[in-house]
């Protein structure tokens, strides 16, 4: 039935910027959003004024603007990645306990994070490789994973070794349990939840090719 319908929306896999553009497009107008360090930060480049998105940074600010340059660099105004940023009209500052209450209290609509692995039921592993000599550092990752209404993950579907990062069960230490709602990868967008994993669209490959790469049963979006 639905197998006749192609959900392939691009001839090639998406690059990092194309993926960021897609995530930006999927954010509902008026949302309050936290973008994680690294690849998720790219999403801010593609948010439009019409979307009226308010960005949160966990070190105590709503209404964060683009990265600061030149004379605008101010050591007292940085983002969670400790990069100098700017403030937009209507910005607000608050202390750390309030900032994490915003997250934990479910007030953020969307949080976009990177990941090492995501499980079939939306478990997230993104803070620690578990290597015995690695110094563990968690920052705000667990709070972000737990609090936002929707947690979007951005990652490549495969590791450098060609192994799927979307897995039946995470083998890396967990950041949060059952928290991820969508996974944006270079090859496909997946919707995760208690009822399994649905492929929304594919890039540069078919649903069947994605199913061969990912070691868990996938459903095709209707």
């Amino acid at each position, binding site marked *: 039935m639905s197998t006749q319908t192609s959900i392939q929306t691009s001839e090639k896999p998406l690059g990092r910027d194309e993926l960021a553009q897609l995530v930006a497009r999927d954010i509902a107008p008026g949302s309050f959003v936290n973008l994680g360090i690294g690849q998720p930060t790219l999403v801010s480049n593609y948010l439009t004024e019409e979307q009226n998105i308010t960005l949160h940074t966990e070190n105590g600010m709503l209404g964060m603007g683009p990265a600061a340059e030149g004379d605008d660099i101010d050591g007292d105004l940085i983002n969670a990645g400790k990069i100098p940023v700017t403030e937009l009209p209507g910005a607000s500052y608050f202390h*750390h306990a309030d900032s994490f209450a915003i997250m934990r209290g479910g007030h953020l609509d969307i949080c976009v994070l990177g990941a090492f692995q995501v499980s079939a039921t939306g478990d997230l592993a993104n803070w620690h490789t578990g290597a015995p000599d690695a110094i563990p550092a*968690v920052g*705000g990752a667990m709070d972000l994973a737990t609090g936002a209404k929707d947690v979007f993950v951005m990652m490549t579907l495969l590791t450098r070794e060609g192994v799927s990062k979307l897995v039946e069960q995470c083998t890396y230490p967990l950041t949060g349990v059952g928290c991820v709602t969508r996974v944006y990868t270079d090859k496909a967008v997946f919707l995760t939840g208690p009822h399994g994993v649905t492929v929304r669209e594919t890039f540069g490959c078919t649903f069947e090719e994605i199913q061969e790469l990912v070691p868990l049963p996938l459903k095709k979006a209707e």
Partner: protein
Amino acid sequence: MLKFIDTVGEAVAGIKDGSTVMIGGFGNAGQPFELIDALMDCGAKDLTVVNNNAGQGDQGLALLIKEGRVRKMICSFPRQSDSWHFDAKYHAGEIELELVPQGNLAERIRAAGAGIGGFFTPTGYGTTLAEGKESRFLDGKWQVFETPIHADVALIKALKADGKGNLVYRKTARNFGPIMAAAAKHTIVQVSEIVPTGSLDPENVVTPGIYVNSVVRVGSAGGGVGTSTEKVA
């Protein structure tokens, strides 16, 4: 009793060996570098330090760690590209680390200042950082019991203090300052400017002076961009 103190050295002189010291700041923003340098000079050792990070580069908290004055770090993010002094101590087994998710760290500090004996939070449930802690299913989700973090001393940085010790901060340099001021038995604040009582709008005071014990002015009285600007380079 609130005191205005002339030098950072006098401000930290009472800090004893074995103290738990909260240090404000997230990265370099809001980090009270001059008070940390004074803590270094005063010789206090065997310290437990509470900060979001574990020092960066060759300044501030990083130097305190390098000199072996910190017995234990309570923080959320010790590993950074320039946290080499912490890295070395950690790998040598010369420093203890209590790793806490950042929001739990903030809320545990807040709880101490607010007289809360502990709280349940969903953050960390099902992860290695919740191992050994009580979990309960509350309000529709699994939550983990966390306890307050108290301190003997807090060293924080604000933009301005008035004669009552009321504080205002600057931009994201506020971060842990207000909650650490409340959580410590003795709070020492470095400010860029001391202004006359009555000149801060009471509606805009961020930390009421009741939480502040010592105020010391550091750097130029102009305020403006604040001293951390030059430290970021």
